[in-house]
Every structure is written in structure tokens, then in C-alpha cells.
């Protein structure tokens, strides 16, 4: 019978079930519940069929299930060819194939598909945990593959695991060579499916009451920054994101007509030199500390100092930045910008307008007015909370005069409205404030929960000046983070709360490892590849050069592994008797009588006995016994007799006595 038509035996089906289950397990958290349930049922069914040696289900039944599942997937995702729907289809088809398959040939294809489904897990997560999990999965799948190759006896699962482990370990050097040297290209080959980036969190280009505080519950990382200069003080850590100009009375919106070129500003004081790695958030902006000097390629700097990427940030992006925390803008404000910076919707928030007019009358200049407004926040009964009450139609009025409890967006919004009403051009900047210094990796981690909103006002002779009204209400928000600013009773991600020192240390270590993982492994892009090659002394790196280097190194690595492997084929003396005889000959050689290559034991005993008369009485019976054991009747060769002889060889003097 041809091997390919051979039917699987229950053990092999069991392996396949295990491999499939492991490979699909991480997908279950994303798949619709009914696909998970269907897959589990079908897997159990296959196990039942195998266990009880039943007939396979009819093709028509399987077709029906497949048709139903495809329809269900289409209804659920609204498409079939996307990332999520594709994975769902793959999972269902894989399990159905398992119910249809009887021959070894199909099982081989299923194993390859297992590898393929394995890689789709990386579309969702490339964390260290996922990598470790997939390593185990690949190990199991490879062991399954090995299990399909036995035609005679099955040496058992231990052998399979060990062989698979050895095979994978031996593959590591070649994998490293390929990973480092395979020429990378930047950018996708074709446009990604629409849903490739769904599920990322981050700031939005709109801000209404409650929009920033909803990010508080996310401990997802927004960006990490490592500083070549000293890490700035917390009150300088304003990570500038979208800038909002347009207010409709309730919602602030980022302007679509931001002036294209930034103002020339006069930079004062020291610069901050740092590198930012921003996590994908599927929006265009990048983040920098106030005030970015220039945009990293290929992003550009807008007139209101936002960093805008040409495309949505769909992958982890790393860039070098220089910022100047102190600056001065001596220019006049453009009339267009002045108009936009003062615009307020007619009729909305009337009480705020009245209050602004009153305050403005009392204040002699802009500065006094700003201080007066901040004093209201500071001295009156305002309250900083992450769970503010909901606001209605005139949210600023309601916030200023009744609820008086809010989060940064409430303060920033109210402050900006008061400024505009008082004739000072003002705008809202959203972004992140602060961050946690990771002492293990010496970098700063900024999470989504650090999202913040503040205001900027135009002061003649100084330019756009940052005013953070939240800091007036709750200075600790800026100095020590959200956790310090809100009461303990409010829900916050664990990361933001203080905790045991060892726990904090462990968390920082883990984050630091994750950061290195991101930087070294996940962010190994074309750019990093070229940098590495230059550092290794390869000039004029081109893809041809990389490819030939990869080919040469891969060949050498394979040769080395091959030679080491084949070395094990050399005949090894496993027979203890022969080994002991060789040892005995060595001992006699040390006495001065080496055995000639062509000399048999009998002749050797005679010659050695004649040369060493005082040992003759030992040599001759030893060799006679050896001849008995080795060439005598098979029945004599018992293990105990051999080991007795080995012992007597051991007791034979190894050096001549003097």
C-alpha cells in the first residue's frame, strides 16, 4: 500500500487535534462566540469518531455546515476577505477538513495549515507572551508532523517531542541569519484590509466632555521615550497631539485648515534631545514635547506645531526629536488665526460670556485676566475627578456654575471659552501629560491613561503660551500623575496607582523587556537593518549585497550544522566488552607492550606474557576469558560475565610498579 493513502491511526488523530486546538486557541478571544462553539463541537466530534472508530460524517452534512458557517461569517463581518473574517473562515475550514480527512496525505496538508494559522496570530499580537506561546505551538505541530512519518513502530510521544525540539534548536542559527539579513522592504506590498488596524485606542480629533476621560481606563501604552539629555521635569512633559480650534458650544474639533508652515520662534534655554517610539493608533499625528524644533521624516510640522505623518500611524514608529521647552514668538498673530482663536458660537454658554465680560472689565491686561480666571478655578469649589457628572446643552455654563467637577477636558474647555470671550486668542491642545519613568530601562512610558488636554493663549510678545487650568485645580495631576490627583475610590488602571515596591519593580522590568523586544525584534525595519549593517562595517548596503551575504552565511551555517550532525553517525563502540578490551590494550601499552593492529588476542597475550613475566599470570587468563566471552558460545555471553570481566580489566594495574 502506498504510504500516502494510508489511514491515520487514533494516536495521530489525537496529535492533530491537539495541534489544531493550540493553534486556534488565541483566536477564540476575537472570534464570534458561535465560531468558537462550532469549532469546539466539531473537534469533539472528530475525537469521538476516532475514539469509537465510527464512520466519518457524510460530505453533504459537512458541506451544509460549511455553507452555514460561511454565511454566518459574512453576516457577522459584512465581508469575507478581511483580516478577521479571513481568520474566521480559515479556522472553520480547518476544523471541517479535520472531519473529512482520513488519509495521511490530508493530514500533512492540515499540519502545514496549522503553521499558517499559527502565523495569523501575529496579526493581532506580537508580544513576548504570544511569541513564547507560538514557539510551543510550533514545537507541538512539528512533533505531530514527525509522528506522521513512522511506518513501522511508533517510538512514542517523548521521541517525537525530543526530535522536534532538536530539529527546531538546530534551525535557530539559520533562522537568525535569515532574519537579520533577509532584505527588508518598507511599506506594504498591497493595501491592507480595512480592518487590519481596528481595535487600537488613542486620542481623537474631537474633544467633548468625557472624551479624554474615557481613555483613563486604558493601560495601553501610547508611546515610550528615551532621552539623550536629562529627563525633563514632570511639568515640562506635555506631549503635544491634536490642536483644536473649532468649538460648536459642546465639541472641540481639530482644524482642517491649519496653516501649513510653523512660525519661526525664538528658542530660549536648553534643548531636549530624545527618541520617541509611538504605538500604532491609526491616526496621522505623532507626538513631541513642547515645542518641537523640526519634524522627523516623513512627517511635517504644521503651523500650530502638530507633527503630522503622511499616513495613519499603522505600525510602531520610532523617530528622533529635538524640543525646546522655552521659547518666545515675537511675531504678530495672523489675522486669520486671530479670528479663529477668538471665535465662539453665538448664543451658547451665555452665563460664561457674561462672567467673562465682568472679569475682563476688572482686569487691566491679559495677564491679570488669565490669573483672575485661574484663581476662580483654584479658589472656588472646583473638584478634579475622573468620573464627572454628565453635561447637557451648554456644558461650559453647567460646569462653571453648577457641577464644578470635571476632568482636564472640562477645565481646558471652560478656560479656553473664557479666554476667547475675554478677547484673548486661545486654542485647545490635546495629548499626553507626564509618564512613568522606567528606572530599569531608563526611559519614559506614556500610557493612554496619561491623556490630557490643556489650553494655549496668544500673548503679544510671547506668542502661544501654554496654560494648564487643570494644574490650578489639582497641581498634583501635573506633578505626580492622575493617580495622585483623584481620590482612591475612583477606578483607575492598576498601572497608575501606587503599589508595592517589588510589584512596581517587576512591572518596570517587564515593561523594559517589552521595550527592548519592541525596539530590537519588532522594529527591525529596513532602516534598522541598514544601520546594523553599517555598524558591522558593510559599506554601500544594497539588497543584492544583503542577499549574497545571507546566502553565504546561510550556506556556512547549514554546513556547520550538517557536519556536527553527521558526526554522530560515526560508529561508536557500544559493546562494553570491546570497549573494555580496548582499555586493557591501552593499559598493556603503558606497560610497554602495545598491540599491533593486525594482532589477534591470542598472539597478543602470548607476546605480552613473555614481555611482562610478573603480569603473565594475570594477562593470560584475562585474555582467555575475553576470547571465551567474545567468540565463544552465545549462551556464555551474559551481562554479569561481561561486567565481571570489565571489573577485572579495571583492576589490572595501569602502570608498571617501581
Amino acid at each position, binding site marked *: *500500500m*502506498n*504510504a500516502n493513502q494510508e489511514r491515520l491511526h487514533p494516536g495521530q488523530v489525537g496529535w492533530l487535534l491537539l495541534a489544531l486546538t493550540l493553534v486556534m486557541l488565541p483566536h477564540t478571544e476575537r472570534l464570534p462566540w458561535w465560531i468558537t462553539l462550532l469549532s469546539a463541537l466539531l473537534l469533539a466530534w472528530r475525537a469521538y469518531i476516532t475514539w469509537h472508530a465510527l464512520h466519518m460524517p457524510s460530505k453533504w452534512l459537512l458541506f451544509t455546515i460549511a455553507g452555514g458557517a460561511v454565511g454566518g461569517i459574512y453576516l457577522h463581518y459584512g465581508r469575507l476577505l478581511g483580516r478577521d473574517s479571513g481568520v474566521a473562515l480559515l479556522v472553520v475550514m480547518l476544523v471541517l477538513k479535520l472531519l473529512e480527512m482520513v488519509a495521511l496525505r490530508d493530514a*500533512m*496538508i492540515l499540519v*502545514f*495549515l496549522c*503553521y*499558517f494559522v499559527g*502565523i495569523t496570530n*501575529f*496579526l493581532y499580537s*506580537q508580544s513576548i507572551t*504570544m*511569541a513564547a506561546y*507560538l514557539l510551543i505551538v*510550533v514545537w507541538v505541530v*512539528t512533533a505531530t*508532523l*514527525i509522528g*506522521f*512519518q*513512522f*511506518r*513501522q*513502530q511508533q*517510538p512514542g510521544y517523548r521521541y517525537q517531542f525530543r*526530535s522536534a525540539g532538536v*530539529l*527546531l534548536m538546530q*534551525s*535557530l*542559527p*539559520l*533562522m537568525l541569519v*535569515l*532574519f537579520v539579513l*533577509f532584505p*527588508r522592504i518598507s511599506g*506594504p*506590498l*498591497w493595501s*491592507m484590509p480595512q480592518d487590519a488596524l481596528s481595535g487600537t485606542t488613542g486620542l481623537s480629533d474631537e474633544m467633548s466632555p468625557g472624551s479624554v476621560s474615557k481613555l483613563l481606563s486604558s493601560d495601553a501604552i501610547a508611546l515610550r521615550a528615551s532621552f539623550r539629555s536629562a529627563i525633563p521635569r514632570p511639568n515640562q512633559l506635555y506631549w503635544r497631539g491634536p490642536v483644536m480650534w473649532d468649538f460648536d458650544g459642546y465639541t472641540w474639533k481639530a482644524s482642517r485648515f491649519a496653516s501649513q508652515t510653523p512660525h519661526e520662534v525664538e528658542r530660549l534655554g536648553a534643548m531636549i534631545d530624545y527618541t520617541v517610539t509611538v504605538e500604532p493608533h491609526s491616526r496621522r499625528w505623532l507626538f513631541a514635547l513642547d515645542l518641537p524644533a523640526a519634524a522627523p521624516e516623513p512627517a511635517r510640522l504644521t503651523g500650530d506645531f502638530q507633527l503630522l505623518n503622511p499616513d495613519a500611524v499603522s*505600525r510602531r514608529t520610532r523617530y528622533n526629536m529635538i524640543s525646546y521647552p522655552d521659547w518666545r514668538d515675537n511675531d504678530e498673530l495672523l489675522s486669520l488665526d486671530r479670528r479663529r482663536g477668538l471665535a465662539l458660537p453665538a448664543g451658547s454658554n451665555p452665563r460664561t460670556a457674561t462672567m467673562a465680560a465682568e472679569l475682563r472689565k476688572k482686569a487691566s491686561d491679559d495677564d491679570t485676566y488669565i490669573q483672575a480666571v485661574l484663581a476662580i478655578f483654584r479658589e472656588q469649589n472646583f473638584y478634579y475627578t475622573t468620573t464627572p457628572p454628565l453635561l447637557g446643552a451648554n456644558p461650559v455654563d453647567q460646569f462653571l456654575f453648577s457641577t464644578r467637577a470635571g476632568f482636564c477636558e472640562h477645565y481646558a474647555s471652560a478656560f479656553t471659552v473664557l479666554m476667547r470671550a475675554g478677547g484673548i486668542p486661545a486654542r485647545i491642545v490635546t495629548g499626553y501629560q507626564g509618564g512613568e519613568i522606567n528606572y530599569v530601562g531608563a526611559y519614559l512610558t506614556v500610557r493612554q491613561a496619561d491623556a490630557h488636554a490643556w489650553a494655549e493663549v496668544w500673548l503679544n510678545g510671547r506668542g502661544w503660551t501654554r496654560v494648564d487650568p487643570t494644574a490650578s485645580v489639582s497641581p498634583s495631576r501635573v506633578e505626580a500623575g492622575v493617580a495622585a490627583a483623584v481620590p482612591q475610590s475612583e477606578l483607575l488602571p492598576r498601572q497608575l496607582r501606587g503599589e508595592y515596591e517589588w510589584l512596581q519593580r517587576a512591572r518596570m522590568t517587564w515593561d523594559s523587556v517589552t521595550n527592548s523586544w519592541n525596539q530590537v*525584534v*519588532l522594529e*527591525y*525595519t529596513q532602516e534598522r537593518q541598514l544601520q546594523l549593517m553599517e555598524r558591522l562595517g558593510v559599506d554601500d548596503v544594497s539588497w543584492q549585497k544583503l542577499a549574497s551575504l545571507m546566502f553565504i552565511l*546561510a550556506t556556512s551555517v*547549514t554546513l556547520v*550544522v*550538517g557536519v556536527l*550532525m*553527521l558526526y*554522530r*553517525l*560515526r*560508529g*561508536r563502540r*557500544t559493546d562494553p566488552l570491546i570497549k573494555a578490551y580496548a582499555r586493557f590494550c591501552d593499559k598493556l601499552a603503558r606497560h610497554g607492550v602495545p598491540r599491533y593492529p593486525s594482532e589477534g588476542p591470542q598472539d597478543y597475550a602470548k607476546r605480552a606474557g613473555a614481555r611482562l613475566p610478573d603480569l603473565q599470570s594475570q594477562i593470560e587468563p584475562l585474555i582467555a576469558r575475553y576470547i571465551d566471552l567474545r567468540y565463544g558460545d552465545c549462551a556464555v555471553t551474559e551481562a554479569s560475565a561481561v561486567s565481571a570481566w570489565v571489573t577485572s580489566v579495571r583492576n589490572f594495574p595501569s602502570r608498571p610498579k617501581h
Partner: protein
Amino acid sequence: METPPPNRAYTYEPPPHAPRWWRFLSVLRPLLTPWRWLRRYLDRWLFQLHGTQAGSIVLAQRRIFILPSRYGTIYVAALLLMLTGSINYNLSLGFILTFMLAALGVNSILHTFRNLARLRISAGRAEAVFCGEYARFKLIFENIGALSRYSIGLTRDGRHETYIDVAAGQSATACIDIPAPRRGIMRPGRITVFTRFPLGLCYAWAYADLDARCTVYPRVETQAPALPLPSAHHGLGLSHGLGQEDFAGLRSYSPGDSPRHVAWKAAAREQGLMTKQFSGRADTELWLDWRATPDTLDTEARLSRLTRWVLDAHTASISFGLRLPEIELQPATGDAQRERCLEALALFEHGRRA
């Protein structure tokens, strides 16, 4: 009975009585039969086939060939798909997994090669069979290395495969059954020793053309006339020597007894293996003579009849001799005589046949 596959010719002989111009034409031979010529060229140059090897062969590096199997091709296709996906989605871990699997594939080439390397193969004894039966050739695989070899396959025609495992430091015997269509000395021909272990992605093979031989006795005639009468001057009727009437008793089986004499009924009654004894008629002398067979039959049919008679005479424990045109075997009894006679029949005019 299954018809055996035709033997493939690996040497190209000119037709007998070739005219002189054939020699000049022979230069163009590769053009006439390009595939056969290419195959022969490959066999000589690449596969290093130089005919039968006496003794044992060791599968050294130059004897082992390796190519991706069908699954290996599918595997490579799957890896290319994974690589494209990794590039498109910029999945670093996707690259790592893809390259890991690629390295695994490369590594499996080494492992598959190693599964065959340094195996020593020698031919075991093949028991003689009758024409029309299956000749069972034994191949002894010796593994001196410290690694067990699994799933070593053997095939002669590419369709029927036999598999064996050879444990580390041990030897194992594989049997290949080949239909024996003609009497004479049969050789197994070129046997392909192959393996796909451990991942099934590569197919490594080596050719073993061992000096194994199996004697094939002539086909036994099924409806042969009864044994010819022994010489009349002995005055004995066939009734004494023939058939099972002169059954003399049972003795316990000893190795070497003909299976035909084993009392299978007794064995079925769980009385142990017993051998039937017949009253030997040493004085009955029977000559099985080529000339006693009708010359209207062809050579093979006459040999078949003689074979039948040899078996019958041996079963009846008659002392018999065999007379062939060039050979005369003196009358004797016993298994040795049977073998001798059958071999003479098997090799009758053996050298003379093309």
C-alpha cells in the same frame, strides 16, 4: 497470479546481426531515444550505477540523492505565502516564524540524508521458489551509528513499498517479494532504498543493486500424468511406492523436515508438530527421464512435468534419479536429492537462454 512488471533495460544493446552501418548510426542514437539515453547517462554519471555490487554496500554520501518531496513543494509554497504576508503586514514575528520553518525545512534535508547515510546493506539468502510464486529477497540493513533509523523504505517498482526501522547499533532484515515469472536464477535487480523521515518534506534515496540471487524452479504442472513406472526388472508395482498408503507412523518434528510431511491435522489437534514417516523404499528405483516426456510439449512444459514428478517421488519417499539431456543425477532419496533435482531442472539450459 499477478503479472510481473517488465524488466527495464538499462543497457542498450544493438539488435543481433546488426549491419555495419548501424555502428555509424549509433552515434545518433541519443537523438532517436533521447530519454533513454539521458537516463542511461544519468545512471552512469550521476547515480554511479555500475551494475551489481558483490558483497555489501555502504550508503556513502555520493550514493544518496535527495530532492524535495511533493509535500516539500507544498511546504515551500506555504512558506512563500507566509513570507508575503509578513512583508505586507510588516510582522517581525511573522518573519521569524517563516524563517524558523524555512530553516526547519533546510534542516530536514540534512536529517533525511542522515537517516540513510552510512547504512550497510547486504543481501541475505533467498529461499528457492517455484516459477509463478513470489521470490522473497532479504536485505540486511546494518546500522553501526548511534542513531536509530526510522521508516527506511524499499521499493523495486515504485509502487509497492516496504518499510523497516533499524535501531542504533543493530541490524534489521527487510523482505521484498518479487513475482518469479521464469525459472532459472533470478536477481532482484535495482532496489531503491529511500526515506522521507523525519518531516516528510524531502525524499532521499539510494540504489542498491546487490548480488542477491534466488533459484526459481520450473512451474509445477498441475495436471500431470502419474509417475512413470519404475524399471520393470525390480518387479515392484507402483502401488508400493506411491501415494500415502505406506504411512509408517509419526515422530516428533525436527528442524529441516519437509513441511509436506508435517502432520498438520495433528498440529491442529494441538498435539505439537509431528512429522509423518513413510516406509522408505530404497529398493524402488525410479528414473525421471526427459525422454519419457512427450516431445510434442515444449521445453518448459516438459520441465514442469518433471518437476511435478520430482515432488511426487519425494513425497512418496521413492528413491529417484533424474536424467536430462546433459545431466544425470543418480537415484537417491531425501530432501537433498529433491533440491538437487529441482535445481538441475531450474538451471536446465539456463546459460543458453538469452
